[in-house]
């Protein structure tokens, strides 16, 4: 009985930290993403059109109806990272990738300061150990900051 209680006492703080960490990641704003992790649309667009440049894995972590209308060529739909289901799908998508894999995530659902998806996605991948991870900075939305700029776009 004592051993059982002892185990619970040991595990509880760990579970609390995991729960708190997950909840905290989902409530952190996009502005909390380190600027060193950001990539500007023009920079990514240039890299995509450079035939000699290595192409990163691009994951869209926003809503499906946006992805279906327009997305970056080669980008895969990972699901909205604002909820547990979306984060689970994102983690599953990258589960077999080496930690050194070049990954770019983006959303563009709404203005950067209001985006509910990008920070949870960034912190989830960061926590998994991905260090070659970039976040596409979309100030207003995908239409304004990517499509209207004439950067490469495709649709489903």
């Amino acid at each position, binding site marked *: 009985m004592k051993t059982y209680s002892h185990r619970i006492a040991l595990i509880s703080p760990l579970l609390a930290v995991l729960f708190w960490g997950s909840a905290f990641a989902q409530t952190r704003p996009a502005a909390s993403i380190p600027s060193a992790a950001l990539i500007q649309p023009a920079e990514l667009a240039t890299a995509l059109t450079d035939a000699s440049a290595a192409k990163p894995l691009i994951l869209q972590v926003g*809503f*499906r*109806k*946006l992805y*279906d*209308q*327009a997305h970056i060529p080669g980008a895969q739909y990972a699901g*909205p990272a*604002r909820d547990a289901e979306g984060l689970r799908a994102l983690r599953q998508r990258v589960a077999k990738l080496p930690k050194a894999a070049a990954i770019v995530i983006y959303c*563009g*659902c*709404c*203005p950067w300061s*209001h985006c*509910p998806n990008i920070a949870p996605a960034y912190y989830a991948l960061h926590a998994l150990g991905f260090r070659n991870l970039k976040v596409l900075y979309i100030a*207003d*939305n*995908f*239409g*304004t900051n990517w*499509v209207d700029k004439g950067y490469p776009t495709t649709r*489903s």
Partner: protein
Amino acid sequence: MAASMSRFLLCVIVTASLALLSGPCMAQSQMAMAPDFSRADMAGTAVHLSDYRGKLVLLNFWASWCGPCRDEMPLFSRWQRQYGARGLQVIGVSMDDDAASARKFLKQHPVSYPVVMGDAKLGESFGGVLGLPATYLIDADGRIVARFEGEIDLKNVGARIQMLLSHMTR
């Protein structure tokens, strides 16, 4: 002669006012016909956009997880109550990936206007809804007279709605 001159001056004033109030969203020369659609609202009632010809339609694309969208909706509800009798009709289009999320939100935060579910096809027909919120003003003839991306400038848009409504009732 005096009457036709008055009408001409009125037209000039209205056009100039609309141009001033329109801001950067859409030039008058870009006015396109709004694509018609027919969708069931959350109560199961059919909503045909073309049925609202003769009214000023505020068409708002939103989603339950979109903060700026949620901020705007109480005002749209108020505008519907305030200006509905004068010819304004607000229609919401949820871009939530599932209807259950939209229904749940609307149950907690009811609005005074019909809401239908949108999809990529509907978004594309309006030139692409590639960010939320996105709001369109459609005049009594079914032309898109304004498109606003992101949270709207409430004062500006409110003034524009009043201007368009007063123009309709002349």
